C-alpha cells in the first residue's frame, strides 16, 4: 500500500515537472535569448557569456527604435483606456443593472458583440476613418479604439456586481433623504470596490496586450510595446535578442500590477458568487 502510494506520488511529481517544463520552457528560452550576445544567438548549447547588452540597447534608444517611448505610450494608452472605460462604464453598468429601459438589453448585447467580433473585421474602415479624422497615431485615437476592448468588459462584469447588491440599500438611503447620485456614490460604489479593482486589472491587461489596433492605427508617435517589440525583427538582420529583451520588459507592468492588487483580485473574483 505505502509502496504503491509512494510510487503514485513520484509519478504525480514527474507529471508536474513535465508540465512545468512545458509551461516555462518558452519563457526560459526568451530569458536566455535576451541574455545572449548577438554573435552566439544561434548556438544551440547553453554555455554562453551572459550579457545585459540587449537590455541596454533596448532601453537605451539605440538602433533607431525608441522603445522607451513605446513603453510610455503603452502605459498612457492602457491607463487612459481603463480610466475612460471606468468613467463611462460604471454608471452604464449601474443603470443597466437597476433599470430596464427601452432597448436596454439590445444595447448591452451590442456592447458585448464588440468583444466577440474579431478586431480585424473593422480594422480597415477604422484605418480610413482615423486617417481622415486625424486620429491616426494619436493617444486619443488609441484610447478611443481600445474602448472596444475595455468598455464591454467593465460594463458586463460591473453590471453583475451591481445586480448582486440588493436595491433596498440604496432605497433606504433615498428614504433617509440622500439623492440618487449620493446613493450611487455613497452606498453602491463603495460596496463594489473589489470588483472595480479586479475588472480594472483585467481591462488593463487586455488593453496592454492588444496588438492589432496599434499595428494598424499607429505608426510611431503612439505606437505601443506589443508592436514596438517586433520592430527589432525588421531591418537587414532580425535581432532576436533585442526582441526577447523588449518582450520581457513589456511584461513587467501587468505583472507588477497583478501582484500588488492580488489581494483585491481574489476577493473581487469570488465576491459575485457569495450573496450577502
Amino acid at each position, binding site marked *: 500500500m505505502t509502496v504503491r502510494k509512494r510510487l503514485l506520488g513520484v509519478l504525480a511529481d514527474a507529471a508536474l515537472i513535465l508540465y512545468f517544463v512545458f509551461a516555462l520552457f518558452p519563457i526560459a528560452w526568451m530569458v536566455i535569448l535576451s541574455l545572449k550576445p548577438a554573435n552566439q544567438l544561434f548556438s544551440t548549447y547553453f554555455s554562453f557569456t551572459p550579457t545585459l547588452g540587449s537590455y541596454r540597447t533596448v532601453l537605451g534608444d539605440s538602433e533607431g527604435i525608441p522603445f522607451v517611448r513605446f513603453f510610455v505610450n503603452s502605459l498612457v494608452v492602457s491607463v487612459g483606456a481603463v480610466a475612460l472605460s471606468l468613467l463611462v462604464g460604471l454608471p452604464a453598468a449601474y443603470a443597466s443593472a437597476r433599470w430596464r429601459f427601452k432597448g436596454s438589453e439590445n444595447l448591452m448585447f451590442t456592447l458585448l458583440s464588440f468583444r466577440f467580433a474579431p478586431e480585424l473585421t473593422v480594422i480597415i474602415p477604422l484605418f480610413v476613418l482615423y486617417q481622415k479624422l486625424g486620429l491616426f497615431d494619436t493617444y486619443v485615437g488609441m484610447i478611443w479604439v481600445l474602448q472596444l476592448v475595455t468598455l464591454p468588459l467593465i460594463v458586463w462584469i460591473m453590471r453583475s456586481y451591481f445586480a448582486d447588491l440588493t436595491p*433596498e440599500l440604496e*432605497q*433606504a438611503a433615498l*428614504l433617509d433623504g440622500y439623492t440618487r447620485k449620493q446613493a450611487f456614490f455613497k*452606498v453602491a460604489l*463603495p460596496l463594489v470596490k473589489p470588483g472595480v479593482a479586479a475588472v480594472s486589472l483585467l481591462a488593463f491587461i487586455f488593453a496592454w496586450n492588444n496588438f492589432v489596433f496599434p499595428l494598424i492605427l499607429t505608426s510611431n508617435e503612439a505606437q505601443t510595446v506589443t508592436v514596438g517589440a517586433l520592430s527589432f525583427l525588421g531591418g537587414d538582420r532580425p535581432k532576436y535578442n533585442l526582441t526577447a529583451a523588449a518582450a520581457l520588459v513589456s511584461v513587467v507592468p501587468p505583472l507588477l500590477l497583478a501582484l500588488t492588487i492580488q489581494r483585491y483580485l481574489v476577493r473581487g473574483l469570488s465576491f459575485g458568487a457569495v450573496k450577502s
Partner: protein
Amino acid sequence: MTELELRDLRKTYRSRGRPPVTAVRGLDLTLRSGELLGLLGPSGCGKSTTLRMIAGLETVTDGDILVAGKSVTALPAQARNIGVAFENYALYPPLTVAENLAFGLRARRGGDRREVAGKVADMAARVDLTPLLDSHPATLSSGQKQRVCLARALIREPDVLLLDEPLSHLDAAQRDTTRRELKRIQRDLGHTTILVTHDQEEALSLADRIAVMRDGVIQQLGTPYEIYDSPANLFVADFVGEPAINLLPAVADEDAHARLSGSVRVALPVPVPPGREIVVGIRPEDLSLTGAEGLPARVVAHEPLLEAGIATLALAGVERPLVVLTGPEVRLSHDEAVRVTADARLTHVFDAETGDSLR
C-alpha cells in the same frame, strides 16, 4: 401625531408587448394617528406595491396619498419623511451599528457630530442596542438586525413608519420576543404604522386593525376580532385562522339548516332561502367531539400536538374532510366512530357563487 390617508390608490404596470398588470385597484384607507394597521394578504396581492407607493419608491398610477392632510403623491422618496424597515434589513455591511444609524441622519442636516451621536445613543437605548453599537451587521443575529433596521427607520423621526414583513426571517423564539419589542417601541413612540405581512399571526398579534387584501383590493377592514369572528367573504375566512376553517359546500334547507349531504344537516346562524347554493364555514376550534348528540363521523387521522390535537374526520356522504381542534386529553384511533357538534352561533355562511358572507 400624523394621520395617513390613501384615496383610491391605483397601480398598473405597463410593459411593451405584454398586457398591463394592475397590482392595486382603488385602495381607500385612513389610519388614525398612532395606529398600527396590518396589511395582510398572500404574495402578489399588492400589499408590497402599496407600501412602496407610500414610501415613494414606486410611482402612483392614480389616486392620492396624504400624510397629515397633505398630499405627498408628487413628492420623491427623499422629501416624504417616511421610515421603512425593509424585510431584508438593508443594513450597510461596512459600517458599524452606530454608523448605520448615523448614516440616515447625515443626509438632511449635513450632521452636527454631537447632535448625531446623541440621537444615536438615544435610539440605541430605546431598542436595547447600546452594547452592540460598535458591532458590524454581519455579526448580529436576525433579531438584532431587525432592531437595528427599526432603529434606523425611526431615528429620523418619520411621520409614518412602514414595516415590511418584520418577523419573517426570525426563528420561532426570536419572533416572540421581537414581536413584543416591536409592539412596545411602536406604542412608546406612537408612530402611525403600516405593517405589511403575509403571516396572519404577525398581523393579528401586532395590529390595531387589519386590512385583508387580495388581487389589489381590500377584502375586509376591521379589528383582528372582527376579521376572525365575522369574515366578510370566503377568502378572508380561509386566509385567517390556523388550522384553516372548514369550508363545506352545501344547499340551504328548511328551518335555518344546511344540507351537506343526503343525511347530514347543520344548523345555520341565520335562515337562508331553501335551495340556495351555499358554503358553510366552521372553524376547527368551534367544533366539539364531547357531546353525545351531533353528527356521526369517522376519524381519518389524529395528530396529537401536546397542547392540542388536530383530528381529521369524514362525515357520511360528505366529500370534504372535517378538521377539528381537540383538547390535549383526547385520544382517538383510526376509523373510530365519533359524534361532532357545531355551535350554530359560531358557524359562518357564504354564498357559493359570490363568496360573500350571508350573516
